[in-house]
């Protein structure tokens, strides 16, 4: 595929916000920030668990864990947390299929959990994730990492780690593309 100029609108009405290279660099920067803020490589470090919210938060969490291991030498635990059953909008659309939930060995009790998602928008997914997490145990603290924060919050929720802030109109759609699902990495505005 020919590299597209950033910011250019293609015939399909898509505007590229992050290229594949940008996504890799952003994930690397977020990994550094997580290492710094949680001090996970310090002697008295908390045990950090990255919990990806399906679908695209799950591979993002795995990528962050790989970068964290590369930069700090610490292998953080990774899990996935499906929040579908905790959503407050189930009755506003067709039946949503459930996705996998997998907790790392040892669960989340007394650990520092970093929730990982692709896009932070209304905050309702994160609200559901906090409720879901509570049913799995009692983390020592919970943080939030998102690749894109597009604004328009409907709840008092903010992210601890943001890959890119993107001002958007409510009618627009921010899509994070990942190799695992879409065959290529990138972030586009539709």
């Amino acid at each position, binding site marked *: 595929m020919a590299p597209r100029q950033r910011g250019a609108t293609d015939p399909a009405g898509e505007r590229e916000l992050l290229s594949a290279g940008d996504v890799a660099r952003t994930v690397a920067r977020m990994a550094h920030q997580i290492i710094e803020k949680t001090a996970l490589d310090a002697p008295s470090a908390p045990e950090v668990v990255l919990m990806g919210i399906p679908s695209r938060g799950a591979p993002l969490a795995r990528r962050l864990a790989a970068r964290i291991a590369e930069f700090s030498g610490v292998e953080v635990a990774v899990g996935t947390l499906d929040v579908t059953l905790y959503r407050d909008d189930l*009755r506003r659309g067709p039946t949503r299929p*459930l996705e996998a939930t997998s907790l790392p060995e040892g669960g989340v009790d007394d650990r520092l959990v970093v929730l990982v998602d692709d896009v932070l928008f209304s905050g309702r997914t994160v609200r559901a994730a906090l409720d879901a997490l509570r*049913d799995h145990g009692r983390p020592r603290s919970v943080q939030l990492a998102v690749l894109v924060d597009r604004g328009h919050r409907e709840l008092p929720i903010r992210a601890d780690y943001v890959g890119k802030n993107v001002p958007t109109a409510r009618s627009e759609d921010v899509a994070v593309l990942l190799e695992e699902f879409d065959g290529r990495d990138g972030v586009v505005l539709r």
Partner: protein
Amino acid sequence: MRHLLSTEGIDPAQATAILDTAANLKRALLGREVRKLPTLRGRTVITMFYENSTRTRVSFEIAGKWMSADVVNVSAGGSSVGKGESLRDTALTLAAAGADCVIVRHPASGAAHRLAGWLREAGTSVVNAGDGMHEHPTQALLDAATLRERLGEDLTGRRVAIVGDVLHSRVARSNVHLLTALGAEVTLVAPPTLLPAGVADWPVSVSHDLDAELPSHDAVMLLRVQAERMHGGFFPSSREYSIAYGLNERRLGLLPEHAVVLHPGPMLRGMEIASAVADSPRAAITDQVRNGVHVRMAVLYHLLAHEEESS
């Protein structure tokens, strides 16, 4: 999905979606301290059982409660049914009282379909928990869920023998329709007296020789001999039935190594299944009961956790 009344004509994609939901629910609840999900908070589920049942009623009740629905149980014995109220009036009463879903078991075939018709305007969902000799769709779904766990997710080409009292069995009917929709091949093994009249039109093969069928099947489903529905001589004696169609240890040896033994319960040990077979690791009978809860949670999820359908 608005109702679950039968598996006849079920869309394979819909059936697979329910089974996938059940598998995900099972994984999500595994090892959790709090086995309760907030998904159906504020929804009311009423079970209406006009026939005796332990596992099905309890299973539906637990499923509803684990999804945070309010579950109310009505049994024919302790309700106005005993005063002569018709099924229709009882159902309309329950719907008016605020039921989002009515789960019904009834001795008359077709009762759930009638109920769904009466409740069309009320917007209440109906689940058939067994109607006479017709269907028992959630039992077939939990059997399929158990087979998928033991044999792999894709049941295409898998061979399942359903053995025994097919004539009186709603479990057999529901399984024939569901398993064939999912791509499995079903063989009915029974004496001619215990096969229904129209069996030639079913998408199944029929055999009277259990020993001959066992080596080529991936699963055997044994049916309870339903003495309460038998008025007449269907076979000479229970001993003779057991010798010809009971699954004993010798027959267990005829099955392939990976094959699974299922029984919808309640079991008559020594009749259709030998005690040692029922307790062997090849038998998935307790798995079936466990999966029953997750499958029924999945059914409630697919019926109640989406926007209102205009129908």
